[in-house]
């Protein structure tokens, strides 16, 4: 109100337009985009280091990443499996990520369906459990799970890793699928049933195709979380070694260039899938204008 009292004069048209469109722009208009680009570049720094140095030559007997640029080579890409243990750890991580993605995508989607469609006793509590699970520091998740396994005298290995990965992925999948489901029109299912479809046919022909993009996004998130996980895995892995665990173990003695090769390939695979997802979403939006961003 005070601003109104202070400026009794009628503002000119120029003052009223918040962002001048077209024509000459004040230099301040460019501050934000330039600043944002700088931040994006900053985010890309370590990624570029990884990609660049995966091509660096090394002349020592035991190939290690050195900061000195010694010339480009694709040698490490050809010899990506040349380090004993690294390839095994890499494939173990992929297998683990695929399995935990599958399990958490199924469980998470079902829970999301329950949360969106139904009112039931315990719904509020379930939502709080999901939230606490996401907000809890990872070290607490890992440490408490290890304490649990120790108490029960369970041997740590692949199965405990799988249990842990599903445990921290399922809440993320649920929340991702739920946010996509909330724009879903339940009348479509009723229409299908009115037309004589059995519940199973309705689910397969109507519900599933409509919520599939949401499930895909949730599964993608689960895969990324699982393949990247270090903290929780470190607690429950026992003697099993995943890719991030292997890299962490190698930091103190020196990282072979193959680590950056595998890191680069994971990065590229993720990038391709994400871009495809973006294009897919864009196309979907253009056909259904009411779709949620």
């Amino acid at each position, binding site marked *: 109100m005070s*601003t*109104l009292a202070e400026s009794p004069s009628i503002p000119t048209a120029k003052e009223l337009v*918040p962002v001048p469109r077209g024509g000459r722009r004040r230099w301040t208009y460019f501050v*934000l985009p330039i600043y*944002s680009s700088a931040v*994006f570049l900053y*985010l*890309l720094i*370590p*990624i570029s*280091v*990884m990609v660049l*140095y995966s091509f660096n030559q090394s002349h020592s007997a035991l190939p290690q990443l050195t*900061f000195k640029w010694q010339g480009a080579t694709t040698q490490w890409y050809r010899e990506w499996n040349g380090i004993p243990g690294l390839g095994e750890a890499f494939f173990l991580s992929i297998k683990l990520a695929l399995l935990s993605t599958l399990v958490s995508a199924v*469980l*998470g989607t*079902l*829970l999301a369906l*329950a*949360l969106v469609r*139904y009112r*039931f006793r315990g*719904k509020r509590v*379930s*939502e709080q*459990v*999901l939230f*606490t*699970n996401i*907000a809890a*520091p990872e070290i*607490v998740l890992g*440490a*408490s*799970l*290890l*304490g*649990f396994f120790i*108490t029960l005298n369970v041997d740590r290995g692949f199965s405990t890793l799988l249990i842990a990965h*599903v*445990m921290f992925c*399922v809440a993320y999948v*649920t929340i991702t699928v739920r946010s996509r489901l909330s724009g879903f029109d339940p009348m479509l299912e009723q229409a299908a049933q009115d037309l004589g479809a059995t519940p199973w046919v309705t689910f397969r022909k109507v519900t599933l195709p409509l919520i599939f993009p949401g499930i895909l996004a949730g599964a993608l998130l689960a895969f*990324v979380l699982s393949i990247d996980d*270090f*903290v929780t895995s*470190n*607690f429950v892995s026992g003697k099993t070694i995943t890719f*991030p665990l292997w*890299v*962490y173990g190698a*930091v103190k003695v020196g990282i072979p260039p193959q*680590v950056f090769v595998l*890191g680069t390939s*994971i*990065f590229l695979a*993720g*990038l391709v899938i994400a871009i495809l997802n*973006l294009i897919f979403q864009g196309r979907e939006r253009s056909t259904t204008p009411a779709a949620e*961003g």
Partner: protein
Amino acid sequence: MEQHVRADLRGVEPERRHNRLGRTLSPYLLGGPAILWLVVFFLVPLVTMLSLSIQTCDTFTLACKLTWHFGEFPDVISKFGDTFVRSFIYAGAATFATLVVSFPVAYWIAFRAKRKNFFLLLLLLPFFVSFVIRTTAWQFLLSDQGIVLGTLKDHHLLPQSFHVLATGWAVIAGLAYNYLPFTALPLYVALERIDRHVLEASHDLYANRRVAFTRVVLPLSIPGIFAAFLLTFVPASGDYVNAAILGGTNNLMIGNIIQNRFLLLPDYPAASALSVILMVMMLVGIALYSKVLGSRTIEEYV
């Protein structure tokens, strides 16, 4: 009205009654498996950890017995109090830095950028590279004779003894880098949600752009700022990878201690007590949030 229709249908189609039973049971059948998984492998372990922190363990056989020994808590606080303080200082500094750095970016994407999804993807790019590899790359970049410090030293712009690695600054920088997306995304969600009509209204009421920002945009983004703080500060204060790779041996955080006590020199009660303290602090943070800003809102930011 609906009741009436349903009663009618019940007469015509007896199988609808079966459907009603299905409606009460099906949420439990659908959600049951996931909730069961979370209860058994998330909630029960938290309780186990709580009980482990008041147990006494044999140093050699590691067999633990519940002795209701609460002394572990004052013990670890007096022993690792300074580590706790250090963790919170590092995490707090990193969170503050990411808030300051990412707010303008989130603002720009929410209010000005054309291809929002593309820029959000750019923000998420670091997640496609393993956390450990990202941190290693920073170690690589910040090393004493590395590309930055080495070059500056060669030109005598820095003394030879200058180093960044193995200092608290390196840990803070690593944390700030690794958790930036966790801060930027909730900020973006909050800013994106601001009703543009409110902004227009403020302009109609003669607010210039600075006043519109400080009196409209900033207050409306406070839940997002708080959520970003929580989602960055909590994991950052429990982080130990940055401290281990970038911080050398003198800048350990509480996560390093927990990890050591659990995996290297097993002292389960102490490690559990430390984790319990961390978990309680997080719960207090969430409780404070829901007290001040309502319990529903924070879930919208994750």
